[in-house]
């Protein structure tokens, strides 16, 4: 089967794209030049709207529509780039930061031009020190050549990029928490409305775009909305980077056409499962997503096809679990994740997250009861949909999906008073 010709990952692994001259040799900054010299901001916005680009950070909201919500009231507008990638199983934005920073810069500059932004803020996850250093060096190199700063390429367009590094908090990937954090506060999500388009950073109209979203923009400008819209499904088209991890022979970031069947992604790109193993479950859209199973392998990897399967593409973190996986243990790692990352504002998330993590940990340790399973089966509706932000809604989807599909596996942990997947350790009393 023919491989998708990479667009966003072109040259990665072959050329040093952190060198500005190499980036330019591959056509870099051509789209910026085209946008600034030949297109009005409205024309750029129309092109992006017409491409049907949907945000790559997780929610999949149409980027052009998000841009169009900015009020025309004369207040300064801000563009914030979300590079706080921390969704379990997702590692595409870190790669883009470390390997192709000028593509991000070019995308942000064009986006800022389109929305008439006063300033760009780049919010980089605290753990990404290397990515932060690479990106800052890239901004400096771009400024030296006149791509960042005053009168870019001799035009009337001036733009600076403020590069900010976070300090460890998953929740700051939620856009309003990110704005709070950027203002120097605790990263606690805001009540919406007002939405960032009206009252964002410092109360000003603000657009928050993901790194991969920004990387799509130069290509849309260069090759046109119709080209982009022709890749994959009509309603959510384009190239998409999927981070594949877990039980496959070749884990890694793969750029595919949106809508590729899960089976093809695993077999043709990720090298298939280990010999003699069978697929058990896949988390297709990061730690927040419900699992899909063997019977879903023909499902397209895109926003709408996965939504139809009651899960999501999310951030594109595709975690493969084979038949050696204990799904109670897998659920435990994720339950502990959300327990740890809850900001604590909303009771269902703060308290519910802790109780869920405790119940699943009990089950895995062989100290759980049928009552724990009964509660896990019914708790979904009291946690999901009752919080300010999507974090609380992320606690239950994976757990509920695997509990529904493999109820006997949870029951076995109670019946055998331990984890059937690691009997030696449990009988030695070493459950941890």
């Amino acid at each position, binding site marked *: 089967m023919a491989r998708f010709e990479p667009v966003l990952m072109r040259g990665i692994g072959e050329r040093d794209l952190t060198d500005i001259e190499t980036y330019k040799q591959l056509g870099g900054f051509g789209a910026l030049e085209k946008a600034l010299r030949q297109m009005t901001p409205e024309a750029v916005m129309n092109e992006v709207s017409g491409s049907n680009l949907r945000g790559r950070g997780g929610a999949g909201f149409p980027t052009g529509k998000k841009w169009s919500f900015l009020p025309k009231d004369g207040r300064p507008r801000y563009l914030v780039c979300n590079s706080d990638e921390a969704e379990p199983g*997702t*590692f595409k934005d870190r790669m883009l930061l470390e390997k192709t920073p000028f593509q991000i810069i070019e995308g942000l500059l064009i986006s800022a031009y389109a929305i008439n932004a006063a300033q760009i803020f780049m919010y980089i996850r605290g753990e*990404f020190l290397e990515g932060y250093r690479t990106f800052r060096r890239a901004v400096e190199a771009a400024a030296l050549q006149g791509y960042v700063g005053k009168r870019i390429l001799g035009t009337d367009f001036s733009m600076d990029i403020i590069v900010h*590094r976070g300090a460890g*908090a998953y929740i700051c990937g939620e856009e309003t928490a990110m704005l709070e954090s950027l203002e120097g506060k605790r990263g606690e999500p805001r009540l919406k409305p007002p939405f960032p388009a009206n009252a964002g950073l410092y109360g000003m109209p603000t657009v928050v775009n993901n790194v991969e979203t920004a990387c799509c923009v130069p290509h849309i400008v260069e090759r046109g909305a119709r080209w982009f819209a022709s890749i994959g499904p009509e309603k959510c088209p384009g190239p998409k980077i999927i981070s594949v991890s877990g039980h496959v022979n070749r*884990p890694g970031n793969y750029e595919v056409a949106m809508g590729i069947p899960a089976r093809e992604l695993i077999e043709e790109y990720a090298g298939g499962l280990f010999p003699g193993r069978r697929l058990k479950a896949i988390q297709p859209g990061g730690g927040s997503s419900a699992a899909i199973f063997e019977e879903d392998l023909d499902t397209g990897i895109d926003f709408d096809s996965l939504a139809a399967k009651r899960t999501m593409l999310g951030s594109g973190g595709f975690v493969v679990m084979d038949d050696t996986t204990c799904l109670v243990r897998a659920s435990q790692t*994720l339950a502990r994740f959300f327990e740890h990352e809850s900001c604590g504002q909303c009771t269902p998330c703060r308290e519910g997250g802790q109780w869920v993590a405790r119940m699943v940990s009990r089950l895995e340790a062989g100290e759980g009861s049928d009552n724990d399973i009964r509660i896990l089966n019914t708790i979904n509706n009291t946690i999901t949909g009752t919080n300010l932000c999507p974090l609380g809604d992320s606690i239950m989807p994976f757990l509920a999906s695997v509990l529904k599909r493999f109820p006997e596996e949870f029951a076995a942990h109670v019946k055998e008073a331990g984890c059937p997947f690691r009997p030696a350790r449990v009988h030695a009393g070493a459950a941890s």
Partner: protein
Amino acid sequence: MTPERERRASELARRYPQAKSALIPFLQYCQAQDGYVTQQAIRDAAEMAGITPSEAESIASFYTLLFKRPAGAHKIQVCRTLSCMLRGADELQRHVRQRLGLASGEASPDGRFYYEEVECLAACDRAPCLQHNLEFHYDVTPQEFDRLLDEWRASEPAVSMPAE
């Protein structure tokens, strides 16, 4: 504030439309110098941002990469989330705990090592992974960890948690 900190504070504050945005970068800078966020750093940050020290402390307490008390100079943070768990993180963690004699969140009495099990580090394709003073190490087997540990033992890091 020392003159040097004052210079740094105003330089960071000038980067942003509002000085308060520089609060976390300033605390990161202080931590890189002092090894953790001291009470003096909290007071200095509050002064720079125009807020009370208790508010600055509340903000600092929200972020896991700001250490509120002395921790080891070599900070070893091993990923514990799903993708790493599927590829040997449990075994790696048991090994690291045993080699360092530390539980997650503990520092060694001599102040050289700090160990913590942390959430997804976004290096799932090279699992299991860890960070040592924010530097990534990939595909870390117990043997590879032993090799790294020998290296760290033979060296003193210039900066435990670099700010920039």
